[in-house]
Structure formats: C-alpha cells, structure tokens
C-alpha cells in the first residue's frame, strides 16, 4: 500500500502548528511538527518529509537559516515558506534560497492545501521552472 505524503510543519506559534495539523490530517497527510529551525533540520534529515511548511521568524535557527542549510547540503526536499513577512524582498529572498512556494500569513486554508497538493504532484523540473518564473516576475533585473 502506498503511504500518504509526509508534511513537516515548522512554526513557533503552537496555534498555527495545531491548526495546520488538523487541516493536513483531514486531507489524509501524515504530519510532523517542529517549533524551531534546529528541530526542523533534525526531522528533515531523520524522517525525510515530502514537503516542508516553513515559517521564517523563529528562535534559535530561523527560516532563512533552514533554507540556507538545506541548499548547502544539496537537499531536494520541497519547501513552502509560510510567513507573516509580506514584502516582495522577503519573497525574493526565500525563492533565491531555494524555496518552491511562498504563502503569506494569514493564509486561506483551502488555497494552502491546493498549493501543498500542487507542490507534491509536480515534477522537480516543473517546480524549478515555476520558482524561476516567479523570481523573474518579482525581480526582472536578476
């Protein structure tokens, strides 16, 4: 039997962790939780989630730190950044660090679930093309 995709939720707000777990499990996903970047890195290495929902502003190691370490280790884990930082510059920074999608808080639960499903079903090449297209759209100079 094919196992359900595994989603790692990283956020320092317990409310958000709880909420996302309920939504994702209702859709049949398996969920893992982390409240800081350090834990997130460990769980990514040990439990190999299929997709990571990553907050940015966190204690110890923040979301930027997690993205940087993932790209340093050549990880192919798919990452959706979920942040209350809504500036274009933050979106560009996340995409440049290798995130595949950027969703701003507050998020629409139904739309977020669609994004998760989309990221999980796309081929790596499609995801990369989508990331570069969005990056180009936000900063035509680069």
């Amino acid at each position, binding site marked *: 039997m094919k196992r359900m995709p595994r989603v790692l939720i990283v956020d320092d707000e317990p409310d958000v962790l*709880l*909420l996302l777990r*309920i939504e994702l499990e*209702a859709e049949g996903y398996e969920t893992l939780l982390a409240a800081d970047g350090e834990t997130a890195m460990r769980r990514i290495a040990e439990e190999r989630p299929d997709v990571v929902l990553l907050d940015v*502003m966190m204690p110890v190691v923040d979301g930027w730190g997690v993205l940087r370490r993932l790209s340093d280790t050549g990880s192919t884990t798919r990452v959706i950044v979920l942040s*209350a*930082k809504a500036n274009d510059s933050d979106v560009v920074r996340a995409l440049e660090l290798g995130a595949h999608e950027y969703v701003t*808080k507050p*998020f629409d639960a*139904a739309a977020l679930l669609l994004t998760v499903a989309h990221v999980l079903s796309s081929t790596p090449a499609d995801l990369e093309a989508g990331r570069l297209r969005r990056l180009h759209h936000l900063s035509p100079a680069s």
Partner: protein
Amino acid sequence: MPAYRQDLAREAKVVGLRDFSTPSLEAVERRRWQLWMVAFVVMAALSAGLVLMASSGATSVGLFKHLPVRVGLVLLTMAFALYVLEKEVHLRRLTRLLLDERVLTAALSNRLKELAALVTVGKAVNSVLNITQVLDIILSSALELLGADGGSIMLLDSPDELRAVCVRGNSHAEGARLPVGEGIAGYVAQQREPLLIAGPASKERFKNLVAQDPPVESALSVPLLNRDDLMGVLNVHAGADRSFTEYDLRALGLFAEHGAVSIANARLFEAERAHVDELLELDRMKSEFIATVSHELRTPLTSIIGCVQTLQRRQLEADVRDDFLMTIERQGQRLLRLIEEVLDVQHSASAPMLETKTVEVADAMAHVARAQQALGREVAVRVSGALAVSADPEALERVLINLVDNAFVHGGSPVELEAAAEDDGRMVRVSVLDHGPGIPVSDMARVFDRFSRGATVTAPGMGLGLYLVKTLVERQGGHVNVTERLGGGAAFHVVLPASRARIEVPR
C-alpha cells in the same frame, strides 16, 4: 591710451627709440651713453679746432684765416651743445616715465596675485563645503599671497576660547587652545580689529604671550567676522626676512571676509546634512516599523482566520472546537494589546504634563513585583535605604512594568529590581536586571529609539516599549541607560530626581 603712455611714446620718438612700443630702461641708458660718447667726440674735435684757431693767431692757415668760418665754428659748437642738452632732458624725462611705469606694473601684478588668491578662496566658498578643506584653502592662499612663513586659523570653540584648527609652519600648535583675551589671537578676538605687529610682540600688551621658535619678527592677525558674528581669527607670521605692511594687512582683511562667509556656509551645510541624515534614519525606522507592525498584526490574525475557516470547513470534536474558540479569543486579545502599545506611544507624545509628587521607591517596586507574581513571574526586589523620588506615580509604574516585561520577554526568569541613591542623594537609580543573552554593544545606543528592535530579537513586539520608557522618564526630569550586566544579561537603569521632601543618603 593712458596719458602717460602718450608721453612715453612721444619722448621715445624724440630720442629715436621707436623699435618697441615701450623702450626699456636699459635701452634708454644705452642711448644716453651713445649720446654722450658722440657729444664727447664731437666736442673734442671742435675744441681741437678752436685751440688750433686760437694758437695759430695771424699765421693761421687755410680755412681758419677767414672770420666767417671762425664765427661759424663757434656757433656750430654752441648749437651742438644745445642739441645734446635737449636730448639729455628728454632722456631724463623718459627714464622717469619708465620708472613710474615699472612701479605701476609691479603694483598691478601684486593686485592680480591678490585677486587670483581671492578667486581661489571664492571658488572654495562656492564649491567646497567640507569645513576642513575650506580652512586649508583659505590659509594656504593667504600664506602664498603674503609670502609668510606660517600661520593658523583659530576658531571660536566656546564663547571664550579659541582652538587652532588649521596650522602651517608650527605643527605642534595644532589643536592648541587659547582663551579669548590672551596672546595675540586672543587679543584680536577680543578687540575684533585687524592687527599688524612689526618687530617682536610686546609682552606687556599681550597677556600670556607664548614665544615661538624661530622668533616671529612680523605678524598679522585678523578677526573672522560673519555679519558681526565672531567665528575665529586668521593669523600669519614671518621671520627676519619679511616685514608685513599695512598693505598686507588690508589684503589679509579681504581674505578674512571671504573666509568667515565660507566657514559659516560650511557649518550651515554640515548642520543641514546632519539633520537630513537624522530624517533619513527616522524614515528608515518608520519603514521598518510598518514592516514590523504588519508582521505583528498578521501573526494573531493568522490564528484567528485559520481557526474560523477550519471551524467552518471541518466537523471537529467538541474539545478541539473549544480549543479553537479559546485560541480566537486569546489571539484577539493579543491584537488588542499591540494596538494599545501603538496608542500608548501616541498618547505619551501628546499627553498633558505629568503630575509629579513624592513616591516611595520601595512601594512602587513592590507593587510592580506583586502584579508580576500574579502572572506567575518571580521578581526579586532590593532597596538600599528609604528612597523617595519625585515622579508621576502612574507613569513610574508604567515605566517599571514595561522594563520588567521587557526583561521577562528577552531575558527570562528571574528578574531583579534594585534601587540606590546616586549623585550624592540628588538622584535615585532604579535598575532592572535580567539573566538573558544581554544586548549586543552595537544595539545599545539605539535600544531606546522609537521603532528600534534588536537585530537578533525574535520575541513579539513593535519596538515601542522602551521608547515609551525613555519618553516618560525624560518628561519627569530623569534619564535612562542600559549596560551589560556582570555575569551576563542586561541592566536597564532609570535615574529620577530624588524627592526634595525627604532626602536620605545611606551610609
């Protein structure tokens, strides 16, 4: 053509010097020498003829026998002498005219040099706005024009003290201070009149005169005045080989006029630039604040909107539903607190005067500690002696609550409150100490700024709490600062005036 030029041309024509528009003095001298040589030869020949004529008497031979020839010869001699004398008169007049011209040319070229130097300074006034560069240009142009050995520009640092900011030829005088009224520059600053000193300066006239090495034989000192505002003094000096005159003093005076204007402009520019920098910084902080506010408001809204959506979309168990409702309320309260924080700052900036009265420090601290204990936070209180401050009780409580709250959020438990007398009992210092990571030195200067948040801070907040503390304390006649705590952590200090009603200094 000027009249003296026409005279020159006419005289030159008379003496046969027409090769050049203006003959040189040397050419005139040569012509005079030629004239007298010719005169000498001719007169010698004529004299010889006359002698011959006289000595031969009746036995005279040839031509000299005839009376008309003799008379003619005498007349010719006289005519030639007249001719030579006339030429000599013209040559002398020409010499005088040429000498005059030479003097005029020299004066003109001096004036040109002076003008060129003034133009340089004028350019500096318009283009260079860095005060050090402006001073440098003024001083070096003045020294070059006057052929001086050295000099300095001293600026008025405080109303009664001059400081040497730009010095040439006397390197150890750089930065020297001189009270107004002492020494030559101090005397000039006091009198506000240009001064020429020929010969060694008298010790009687100038108080506390400092001897220079090599000794100064001649000096000029002029005040730098901009619209009757004394900015400083410009000094130049020379050794034994140069002696300044009233003319030099006038030239330096012109310099000083330009110099004072350019110094005033440069100062104005620097003040404006500082102001602009300040505004830019405030603007940057405001942008940062808006980003922070947006982030801080979005965080509770994320929970609220998320919970509501899930409640609507999913069939949830009863206890989860209750949890969600509680979350919504809690996050709603958090949103409200954030808004109140912003309003508090707005209010403290425009609130009417605070009402200060005598407040027992121990009471105020105990009150805050009790309130924190109700929240499950442990606050240790230490007071040395019975201390009272003159403060607004509500504002003081607000200040202490903000600081203690800040200590818990960034430093963690336990937090200590400490009070001690300071400044011989005139002030009272209340300190809030935590055991957190402390504040990076780079952030210390701006922790109390509006909208400022530490670079490493991840805890929620808009960066207004400490700004509010600072504003409130300053409005009560006190001040705040932050230091590193021995053994780790941060120490925030509030210093308030001690109450005059009762001052006790612990021994």
